[in-house]
């Protein structure tokens, strides 16, 4: 069963599910920050 399909009510699976989404959110934010950061810092501010 993947995180996509983990039932939230099963405590252990549910906590793994939210942990997985938290991990993905943090990593996605890092990626977005690098994308915007490189343009703003290097491109616009010089």
């Amino acid at each position, binding site marked *: 069963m*993947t*995180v996509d399909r983990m039932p939230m009510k099963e405590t252990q699976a549910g906590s793994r599910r939210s942990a*997985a989404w938290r991990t993905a959110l943090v*990593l996605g934010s890092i990626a977005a920050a*690098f994308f915007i950061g490189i*343009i703003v810092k290097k491109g616009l501010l010089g």
Partner: protein
Amino acid sequence: MEAAHAHDAAHAHDHHPTGLMRWITTTNHKDIGSMYLWFSLMMFFVGGVLALGIRSELFQPGLQVVSPELFNQLTTMHGLIMVFGAIMPAFVGFANWQIPLMIGAPDMAFARMNNWSFWLLPPAALLLVASFFVPGGATAAGWTLYVPLSIQMGMGMDLAIFAVHIMGISSIMGSINIVTTVLNLRAPGMTLMKMPMFVWTWLITAYLLIAVMPVLAGAVTMILTDRHFGTSFFNAAGGGDPILYQHVFWFFGHPEVYIMILPAFGIISEVIPTFARKPLFGYTSMVYAVASIAILSFIVWAHHMFTTGMPVAAQLFFMYATMLIAIPTGVKVFNWVSTMWRGSLTFETPMLFAVGFLFVFTIGGFTGVICAIAPVDIQIQETYYIVAHFHYVLVAGSLFALFAGTYYWLPKWTGHMYDETLGKVHFWGSMIFFNITFFPMHFLGLAGMPRRIPDYALQFADFNHIASIGAFGFGLSQLVFVWVVLKSIQGGRKATDEVWEGAEGLEWRVPSPAPLHTWEEAPVVK
């Protein structure tokens, strides 16, 4: 018993699409892994055909086969397709197939995102290939897409930028999936320091990808706005700085080199212990070596730019930082050799490719140290020495490791042993012709032959002749690989679950071929 029946019933009610829809809609990590591998194999041949176009033109001096414009398109697209279409997706294919099997997870964490990550790739590849047919042809700015060329190119450049964006999004989503899977879905008892080396290398690679792919996306976005929206990030005519592009590109580009080699290290670290029938020597130091290489990869980018004119202090910093990478890499080579030391060695095809990797990749590593020396690099910058160096790293390194991994896990994927004789023919063909192709390029580079030119001075003719013959031999050898794979899918000696005597790891505890669903009940690792 009741639970088993319930389990059967659950599967009986699964409505899996068949035919093409199965592959389009699949969320299964094995299906998606297979699609990545087939996709990369196809792109490997597309990129290979472009390479043979290059080598045909360089077979003798003068212009014979292609125009100079097309030649530049061939070198650019060969690089882009091999890096983004062949090597990277092949490793992601391995990650998809193997990581859940190796850590005892039932699938990747985000199975639907996994499907999306893959299906972004074919349109991107189509854009790249189609760019040959638009007015002005494909982009010819080199795979680095350096400005000012990339600002001046025709529509093919826009297609390449769009393709890089799409492939970047695919890579970032794939990496997030891999990190999340490894951090959250490991079987009970599998601590980080018990993970197989292949999983470790991919975990670190995925972090690298998340950090640098957005930087590349940012760089090409700035090229796009310079081209069409009146900005001057890099356009010198508007006050922009072309060298800034090189800094931004190589901040992505150097970690990218390690993105293409770290998973290769992981595969080699799985193969050698199996065929030496010994545990990996220095597991902990291997983990720290991979992490060190990854961290160092962020502070060496300007060694690609020694000739752009930088302060001596900067040259010294980037030179010594680059040389430092030889230390963790040396640790890894030492550990692989030590794993083999007094082992019960046998040389089936995966081991042949692994040992071949050790020999030939190490040559590429050594020439890398030579390139790192600033005064030497200033002499050999933009010569065939560089071409020789990075092909020793990417073909003998990444590609040979991919072959080692394919032969190693193919019986687990297909359920049949591959044809060992044909495998050995493939290995020796690849090894011999690889060296015939690329070793002479060191001499060409040292003699001053520049890269990315369709014509050259007469004194370079002999070595180019040899290199071109080698390239066609190498290309033909790869047809043997396709034959071996297809033969193994169709039939052959039935593979056991363990496949290899001495193989360790969870993937060998599932049947061969691995069923569609594995580890629905997580195994316990002691």
